[in-house]
């Protein structure tokens, strides 16, 4: 019924700045992003690329003294669009967790160490005036969906659970109020690979069962590539490329994305061809003029130094911020043989 049902949250010209003694630090720079209902979007970037700021911005949860500006619109399933930055404190409190929920990395610091896991569920349900009995039933089901024994986990204190169990309990807690959108910031970063992959496959099941939209923020491109339908790549506090996962993996058009893919140790890549990216990521106070990647980019020319590129369409579902995107594939060849059939990519 609602024309905007395609998009669940829309970010326009979103910026976060910190005033620092050394100058203004722009840690999120003019980000435009639409998140579509029912998708899993992977946001990828190195540490210090602004990806966590993007997550905080979606919930208007940027810490002081950061200043968030721009337009963030949330489109609920039913009802009018919500201007997230214009909400009162009370409205914002309701929006968070009930509509948009967030999982941070490091479950240990998200839990109160002196309260049992059950206490966390009860407190959350009561704070949002949800029916406690119904809510706890949902909690049981969510925990078993995440391969946990509900009775035992609910009785436990956070320190009694292993890292992987704790992180799964936190995911269950974040979904217990039935939000539409789940934003996860490095939800698996401190865990070992087997647990990371297991959680990813459980998340996929959770998304289907509870009709969730997910944003998964990570530095680990190969990990999220398994899960996400669409990916957005951040470099130096900006989005530099967005597109379907297959298009990014097979046909990344930004030199940075290509270099990032090539620098990732991979079991299928020939050993000799893994390369690291020369240079280092810029300081937020002193981001290079023009295209922020130009000091590290093999394709950079005067134009890249002089002006910042806009988004160019590679295809209808794939955009890149680069003047030379058409040459990127040739200049930075992939080191793994990708099965290059575009039809297959679109079919997915």
């Amino acid at each position: 019924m609602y024309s905007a049902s395609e998009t669940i949250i829309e970010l326009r010209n979103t910026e976060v700045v910190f005033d620092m003694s050394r100058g203004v630090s722009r840690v999120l720079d003019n980000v435009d992003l639409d998140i579509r209902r029912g998708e899993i979007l992977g946001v990828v970037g190195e540490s210090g690329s602004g990806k966590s700021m993007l997550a905080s911005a979606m919930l208007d949860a940027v810490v002081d003294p950061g200043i968030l500006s721009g337009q963030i619109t949330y489109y609920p399933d039913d009802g009018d669009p919500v201007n997230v930055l214009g909400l009162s404190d009370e409205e914002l409190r309701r929006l968070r967790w009930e509509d948009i929920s967030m999982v941070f990395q490091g479950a240990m610091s998200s839990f109160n160490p002196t309260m049992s896991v059950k206490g966390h569920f009860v407190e959350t349900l009561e704070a949002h005036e949800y029916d406690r009995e119904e809510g706890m039933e949902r909690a049981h089901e969510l925990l078993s969906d995440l391969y946990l024994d509900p009775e035992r986990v609910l009785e436990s204190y956070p320190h009694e659970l292993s890292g992987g169990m704790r992180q799964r309990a936190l995911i269950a807690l974040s979904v217990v109020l039935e939000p539409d959108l789940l934003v996860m910031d490095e939800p698996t970063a401190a865990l070992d690979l087997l647990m990371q992959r297991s959680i990813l496959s459980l998340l996929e099941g959770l998304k289907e069962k509870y009709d969730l939209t997910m944003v998964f923020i990570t530095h680990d491109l190969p990990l999220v590539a398994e899960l996400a339908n669409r990916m957005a790549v951040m470099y130096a506090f900006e989005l530099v490329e967005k597109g379907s996962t297959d298009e990014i993996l097979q046909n990344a058009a930004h030199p940075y994305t290509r270099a990032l893919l090539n620098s990732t140790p991979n079991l299928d890549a020939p050993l000799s061809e893994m390369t690291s990216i020369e240079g280092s990521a810029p300081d937020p106070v002193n981001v290079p003029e023009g295209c922020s990647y130009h000091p590290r980019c093999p394709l950079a020319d005067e134009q890249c130094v002089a002006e910042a590129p806009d988004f160019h369409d590679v295809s209808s579902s794939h955009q890149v911020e680069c003047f030379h995107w058409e040459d990127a594939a040739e200049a930075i060849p992939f080191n793994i043989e990708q099965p290059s059939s575009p039809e297959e990519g679109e079919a997915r």
Partner: protein
Amino acid sequence: MSVDTHPDYEGRDPLVSLEDVEVHFEESSGLFDFSEPEVVRAVDGVDLDIFEQDVVALVGESGCGKTTLGKTTIGLQRPTGGSVSYRGQDIWDAKDGKGDVEIPYKDIRSSLQIIHQDPGSSLNPNRRVMKILEAPLKRWQSQMSAGDRRGQVLSMLEEVGMTPPDDYAGRYPHQLSGGEKQRVALVRALLMDPDLILADEAVSALDVSLRVEMMDLMLDLQEKFDTSFVFVSHDLSNARYFAAHSGGRIGVMYLGELVEIGPAEKIINNPQHPYTKVLRWATPDLTPDGASSDKPPVRKIDIPDPKNPPPGCRFHTRCPEARQVCMEQTPPEYTTEEFHETKCFREDDSHEYWSSPQITDDENEADQLYSEADD
């Protein structure tokens, strides 16, 4: 690197040799608690030889004992059973002064070095890089003049690509990036001219794009200084990168046991143990039609409690291939091919495993199984 170019281990004396090593930690019980203290079996029955210019990468989940085994290898952790020897000298006999000590403990200690996981907390924040790096030289080579010492520190900094070295030597750790801190830790280990360095998750804390660079640097230095490495990682692709480039081996650990060890490319391309196959599944793969996010190929995703490891084959509670016999008998090491050993009955075509009934978890039982905790 293929196995053909593998250094031939035959006839070479191991640098460090572990025999039937076990490390059990007793959990301290309360003052008035007279019950049996609980024992965490961090490492159990491990045999491992490390040669000169050798690389062994240890992989496994958190809590599998890979770091404890690494620390035991370099003599930082005293084993509760079995022996660890350095060039034939038992390390702990040397420390205790038992028997004829041929190699003094002091020499062993400086020959076996470590790079910690978190470079931020392994460097003193109140000291400049020069001071940090001079300290071990002052301690172990006290006859060296101050000028020589500084010269050596500077040349090592240059060696690891921290140029200009004078500038870096004057900095405090917080003025270095994560990769640079890890290089300082590497220099500190190398200044002792060690035979073996334990790199404990040395690249895990770095950004993905910096990991290859750091591993390349360690590989370069390995060649230049003839150092052996024990490389501990939970990430199979890092372990493969590091071990395969140096013609080394990968050892897979599960609940304190070494369940499979072999040449890196063999472990990656021809894994034998079901657990190694699970780790292979867990390693992300960039080809879109590669591993898809299907269900984990284990019967349950949490690792059992190391205080009370399952009887028989320790992996039987999660193993997709487990049969009745796996609950009852402990598999020995089978040699699959040269230098490739696997602890699994499936290696033996005539074993009763093949006629043993499959283990099935019914629903109720499965719930109980999930409730076993690690940590």
